[in-house]
């Protein structure tokens, strides 16, 4: 009970900090706190495997990726210049929509109470092997019942990898599909090939 409220406060605070921080590095730190608190919340919900995944994937991989990109972008060039604000009053509709969403979700959730939550799962308590939310329980569900979804996800990941390689590859012109030149007018000598530029991003996927 107390754990939930502490975690909830921590998550809200870190989320607000993430969104409002001026420098992206600070945001990353806020996000890290948020993720860890979320993982703890998962534990209170008996989703132990997901809690571990949350730490490993989000904190371990995605956030590190963010840090890498920030480090790359800030090395050697001006730090994040910001141009003129094109949409200065966008905050107003944004907050309106967001509040509407918040209110809607809350109203819906409060009016459809779920009472089952009060009972403990029948197949053991948290931490037991095979109990609800454990690795074994999760694995059976993932590889037996939802194998197709799993495979599709794998496919999506592969597509993402290919896409990243294409976009951020050697000469990727910023998201536009590369076009080969129609005719090769002259072939440059191999030895005089241009050295890779310093800001080149390699293997960012």
């Amino acid at each position, binding site marked *: 009970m107390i754990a939930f409220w502490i975690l909830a406060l921590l998550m809200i605070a870190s989320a607000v900090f993430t969104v409002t921080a001026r420098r992206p590095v600070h945001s990353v730190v806020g996000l890290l706190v948020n993720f860890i608190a979320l993982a703890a919340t998962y534990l209170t919900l008996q989703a132990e495997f997901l809690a571990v995944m949350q730490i490993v994937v989000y904190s371990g991989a995605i956030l590190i990726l963010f840090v890498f990109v920030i480090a790359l972008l800030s090395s050697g060039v001006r730090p994040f210049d910001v141009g003129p604000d094109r949409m200065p009053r966008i905050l107003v509709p944004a907050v309106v929509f967001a509040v509407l969403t918040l209110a809607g979700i809350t109203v819906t959730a409060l*009016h459809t109470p779920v009472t089952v939550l009060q009972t403990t799962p029948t197949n053991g308590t948290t931490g037991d092997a095979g109990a609800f939310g454990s690795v074994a329980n999760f694995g059976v569900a993932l590889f037996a019942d939802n194998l197709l979804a799993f495979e599709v996800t794998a496919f999506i990941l592969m597509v993402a990898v290919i896409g990243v390689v294409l976009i951020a590859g050697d000469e990727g012109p910023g998201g536009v599909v590369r076009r080969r030149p129609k005719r090769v007018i002259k072939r440059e000598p191999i030895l005089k090939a241009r050295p890779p530029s310093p800001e080149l991003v390699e293997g960012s996927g």
Partner: protein
Amino acid sequence: MLLYLVWLLPLVGGVGLWAFGPQLKSWAGPIGSALVGVSFIATLFLWRDATAARALDVPLGSWLPGWSFGLLLDRLSLIWTLIITGVGFLIHVYSIGYMDRDRAFARFFAYMNFFVFAMLTLVLSDNVIGLLVGWGLVGLASYFLIGFWFYKPTAVAAARKAFVMNVVGDIGIMFAIFLIVAKLGGIGYGLIFANVGSAFTPHELFLVCLGLFIGCAAKSAQIPLHSWLPDAMEGPTPVSALIHAATMVTAGVYLVARFAPLWSASPDAQELVGAIGALTAIAGAILGCAQWDIKRILAYSTMSQIGYMIMGVGIGAYDAGVFHFLTHAFFKAQLFLGAGIIIHALADEQDVRRMGGLRKQMPFAFAAMLVGVLAISGVPGLSGFFSKDAVVYGALQTGHPWLYAVAVVTAGITAYYMFRLLFVTFFGAYRGAVDPSDLGIRHPELAGTAASPGHHPEEEEPHPHAPGWLMSAPVAILIVPTIAIGWLDFGSNSAWKQFFAGFFPRAADAAGAAPISEAVSTLLVLLAVAIGFAVAYARYGAPAALRGAIARLRTETIRMPGVLVNAYYFDAAFEALLVRPARALGGWFDRTVDPHVIDAGVREAAISAQWLGHLFRSFQTGLVRAYALTLAFGVACIVAYYALAFGGGR
């Protein structure tokens, strides 16, 4: 199995010669002829099967229940198949000689074989769908062959005209077939004939017969759909012989004879067909008197003779009509092939006014034409005499005295214009060297005498010469049946009557016994023929007439009544009633509907799309946050829906 061979060999020839013509070169002609010849011999072997109690019916396959396709060789289709392949074979052989110098030698034989195949499809089919397919293919083959010399604009126009008119007929047949299928649900002849009485009301039966007869009239050149036939003489002469004399144009006769149970059950339709046939017979004969082009004379005589046949089968004298088809196939092929010899020898001269005196130079052609003329005129002993007599007397037997009178008069006119043709062409002095204007020919190049470019080179010797054996042999062979085939129907219990005994429904003897006996009727016909011959002799054949031939031809050309020269203004009427309004309508659509409705519609659609594009473009700001805002709006909407639907309700 042999029937498949009969049916498909010409198709093999048609496709093969078309595909490999350039490689085959001069072999195309003999190959094409041999295929048709084999087909003929195979048909002869099938004689016994066809004349058995149960006619030969070979299934091909079936589609829907009751829609089985097959080939039927019974007594009627046997006669037609024999004529198509037999006469067709002779004409093929003749063509080898006639077309020897044409550039498109192989193409010609490919078309000819294709035509034979199409005609066999029409005749051998045992259901109405196959009949319609054959009907259409025959029209197509006819289009190919009439327009064979496609570099002649007149030939192209004639081919188009023939095709369009035939399509009019096809529509009639389709209409009849739709009605039959709608009523019976099946397409086989046997099913149709078994249910004639029960499935149709008299009114429906009349409509079916009317639809079929529209097809007949178009294919067999009956009034008012006849005017393509004289124009079709633009094709090579063997084509005229094969298609427009011996086989294709008689498809209408076949159709009526094949659907004899329908006609016999619908007396109104019989009256209509008989009247149209008689009208066509006399109208064609009168027009035949006014023509100068040798092939057009024969074309009008064809039209007239088919009028006889249609009248015969229309009034219920089926075996007489079919017999006239049989004899006509021989003597008309004979006449056309004889004319072809003359045309070939005179370097594509077709105007009889510029012939004359050919009897001495071309004795063989003279003999051939003489036999043909005697036969078509109905001189006793030759084939035309018997068949025409049967048809004419049939009109009287079935109680049609008016049609009988018309038929007798037509016989006299036929004798007149055929002997006129003979006298002008073969007697007197050769007029090829006479100035055309002295003969009253105002525009020699327009008078049907234009030589086809590329067919015969300029250095062709202009004086008459003898035909090669390839051309003379078929004509010589044809002389035999032209003279003798008529004896099949000699007497009241002839071989022909036995052949078709019980095959056709009995003619309605409504009028009872004929008022005069057959012998008296024959004498009447002979009298008419004699008068016709006498007039022709006095005007063109007598020594006095021959001396002043040039001046006489000149005055006759100049004074020819316009109504005859223009073939009763049928073409002009079609032009005024159909072609011009259609053109006007097309022009109106072109000027008004197309720019102001269709183009405008397309333009307005484009403008609308552009306007919509402008509208949506304003959303595409390129600002990612605006997109995100839009997304948030969407999320808010969805959540609001759930909140209202499930949140507030509890």
